[in-house]
């Protein structure tokens, strides 16, 4: 192939066929508040882990929705679950639950009992 001086990084490319709709619907089911996210990035700005690394909840969320699953779980593991993002979020998104449940989905853990407030009752 002819070298034009630039390449496409496979990790960064978005392939629409990779998006697994059921992952997104599963996440919405587990964390209903997730649909309120306006992508303001407040969570990312305050993040404790973000002070050490480039851990970025907004980016992770984007990658998840775009089907860029590669390396996502490793990225998610950097979260310390300290909960600062929860208090910062202007929309009341349950960000910690979002992270734990993304990991559940990526690991393929069957967690059909986790349905937000309908959990039990």
């Amino acid at each position: 192939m002819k070298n034009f001086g630039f390449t496409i990084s496979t990790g960064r490319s978005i392939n629409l066929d990779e998006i697994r709709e059921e992952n997104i619907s599963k996440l919405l089911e587990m964390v209903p508040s997730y649909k309120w996210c306006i992508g303001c990035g407040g969570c990312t700005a305050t993040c404790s882990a973000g002070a050490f690394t480039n851990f970025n909840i907004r980016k992770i969320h984007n990658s998840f929705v775009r089907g860029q699953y590669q390396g996502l779980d490793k990225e998610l593991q950097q979260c310390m679950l300290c909960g600062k993002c929860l208090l910062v979020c202007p929309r009341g998104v349950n960000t910690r639950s979002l992270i734990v449940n993304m990991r559940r989905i990526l690991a393929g853990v069957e967690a059909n009992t986790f349905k937000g407030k309908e959990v039990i009752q």
Partner: protein
Amino acid sequence: MKDSFSIFVIPFCAGVLVLLGISVWKYWRWIRSFDKLQRAIIRKNIWSWRFLPAIWEAFREGLLHWRITKKNLLLGYMHRSLAFGWFLLIVVGAVQARLAYPDGHPFWMAIFYNYFEPECHPVDFPRAAFFANLMDGLLLYVLSGLMLAMFKKVWSRPLGMKRTTRHTLMDRVTKLALWSIFPLRLLSEAVTAGINGNGGFLVTWLGGVFDSIGISNPAFEYTCWMLYSVALGTFFSLMPFSRYMHIFTEVFLIYFRQLGVHDSNKKTGYTMFELSACSRCGICIDGCPLNRELGITNVQGVYMLQSIRNLELQRNAEPIAENCLMCDRCVADCPVNLDLSVIRRQVRIKNKAAIDTKQGYSYLNDVQPFNAIGRIAYFGGCMSHLTPDITRSMEIIFEAVGQKYWYMDKDQTICCGRPLLQQGFERQAFELRRKNTEMIVNSKATMLITSCPICYQSFKKEYHLSIPVMHHTEYIDMLVKSGRLKLRKDDRRVSYHDPCELGRGCGIYDEPRNVLRATTTLLKTDQEREKSLCCGFNLGNPLLDLEQQTRIRDAARDNLLAPHPDTIATACPMCKKAFTHADNIPVKDIAEIVAANIIEGSAQ
């Protein structure tokens, strides 16, 4: 011993054998599955005098039900009459049989004394009439408790319980057997008394009534005693599989606890003792904020333990364990003092095994150590960074008393690990603890002060640091007491919110109040100290949404606003954040109130 046997004793004896066999087998299995640390603690303390307080506690709680009595007199009476009354009925029955048959007797004589006594042994031992009356009195005592228990089933409010437990079928059947024991005993003894004229005041009178309506005949008598024996046998054989296993298990649990055994992060034999020591009384349900404010009534401690113990309900254990604020209110209320939050955490840890990580927090390796010789370490905590007034006030206080300090997490916070542990990520939490411990030990700081109760509990209970760990309210109280910090009193009227992790978690109730009394007028609220209400923004529950958290918060706020304060004081950045948006009333951390009230030049 022809005269002291009758076919009807067989169900009773069979029940006792089943109960003994299964209990011994279960206890043996559980004791064998204690973990290494628990075994070491038992070996170390088994020859100490700790069995004495254990005996006292077992008597006080197992029989007298002291903690329940403190909650509600009637409820205490109900439990006491059934437990202590029945216990005395057996003990006095045994003494009575012993006196009547000095040459020995089969063990069931203590139970069926009235049936055998008139035939094979004339009433000739001293004080026989006294014993007969005493036994009747005790039976009446137990029956009065039984009446209360039946009343409670219909209307539990007068006994101090808004909600009672929904029991499994097994528990209900066993309860039916238990409830039928005492009326059947009364009936049997009365019929025998009607025929033979023996017994004390109660059964003689009832026997007379039976006689006058002509139902006291040997066939009916035998049937009654048979039914009584079957009820006993049924109860005893079902007991190991029902909630009534708590009767014996609680005694063992109290003994192990007095020896110093505590629960670990994995389910062990000790956990099994705890699971079975739960009497499913349901006292944990009323206090739970999820029940009070959200009407969620099936995730409380009692249901969690039930779901872990019951094979059929085990699939519920996971969602139940997740749905909890970990505010420890149920732990404070539990009459058996079960460590419900630790057991809940065990379930969470088990569930998170599937998404456990191996790499985790390698990025923390780059954090540079700091030399803090001669200083104290101050750990603000993640949340305090969102309430900078608290950390700034602490810096003012440190400077006012001339204390050199190292602000450990000024720029970058390594979380203490407790939020991870609460969610069940045990290994990850350990990794963070290891890094923080390394930082603190290497810095050679002399003391650790933290502003966040979550971090405080973690540093205090999970870190095993060799330097003292203090919450800032403790530290300020110490400064005031030693005279290093002089405070003036302003005219604020303050109600204080006990943070769950600081109060119920670590037992720090007085220090914050001392400081507040020195600086303001402290008002009393209805629910404080052990009974304080969770602010709802606790990190324990991953399932609640903002609206639900707000409802819990509002209940706690209403409690604080009841005495009409002009400021709400708290000692936790999270609680402060929660209440800040609740009303127009100012919410201040104790550090802020103190920093505003320092008398200049007080430092020495």
